């Protein structure tokens, strides 16, 4: 099973896990990225806005999921990414993987989130104190993506 969703609606992690557990594999790994409410120098994030490149986004995520399924012989791979405005504590992204053994599920899950960060056309804008700032890409993300 490969499942790729890009949607403005909140991510239902329980439903996503139930779907991937249904593949009958022994190991399921997941990663969820959430809007942090960390108080930086400019105050806490009130809203996070996710812009994306419709069409290209889904294609990029599907390519990543295909690669993971082939490389780790996964029983299933799910990528759900939210777009539009969201608030602190809400889920931005969910990655789920299912495999016969834990090593494959865990590695594939880490691979998917690492590569999603550099290979999929999403852009984050943080609103703090009524003022919006585009999030800068981090060099550490490039390093993490290249290790695979």
């Amino acid at each position, binding site marked *: 099973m490969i499942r790729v969703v890009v949607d403005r609606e909140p991510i239902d992690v329980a439903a996503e896990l139930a779907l991937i557990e249904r593949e009958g594999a022994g190991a399921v790994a997941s990663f969820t*990225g959430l809007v942090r409410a960390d108080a930086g120098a400019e105050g806490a994030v009130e809203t996070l806005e*996710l*812009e*994306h*490149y419709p*069409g*290209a986004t889904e*294609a*990029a995520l599907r390519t990543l999921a295909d690669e993971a399924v082939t490389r780790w012989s996964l029983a299933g791979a799910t990528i759900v*990414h939210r777009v539009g405005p969201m608030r602190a504590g809400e889920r*931005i*992204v969910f990655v789920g993987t299912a495999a016969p053994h834990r090593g494959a599920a865990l590695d594939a899950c880490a691979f998917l*989130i690492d590569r*999603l*960060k*550099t*290979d*999929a*056309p*999403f*852009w*984050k*804008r943080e609103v703090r104190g009524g003022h919006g700032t*585009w*999030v*800068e*890409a981090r060099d550490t993300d490039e390093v993490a993506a290249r290790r695979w």
Partner: protein
Amino acid sequence: MAVRMLYFAWVRERVGCGEELVEPPAGVTTVAQLVDWLAMRSDGHAQAFADRGRLRAAVDQAFVPLDTAFGSAGEVAIFPPVTGG
């Protein structure tokens, strides 16, 4: 031949629109040349494309380096480094 330009994030904000149809002249063959040519359209375009090192591109929805020839592509996108996940 007409090319559909797409802009995202702060590139979109500086250009002032997310999408435009352009007809680049014959000598403009790579994405970098396309950006040079577009930068002359307005102050917003010039600002958006000022720092070439912070621009990324996709030709017909596939990520490419800026020195790629866009050939007969129908859609070229210019945007900052991605920050999803």
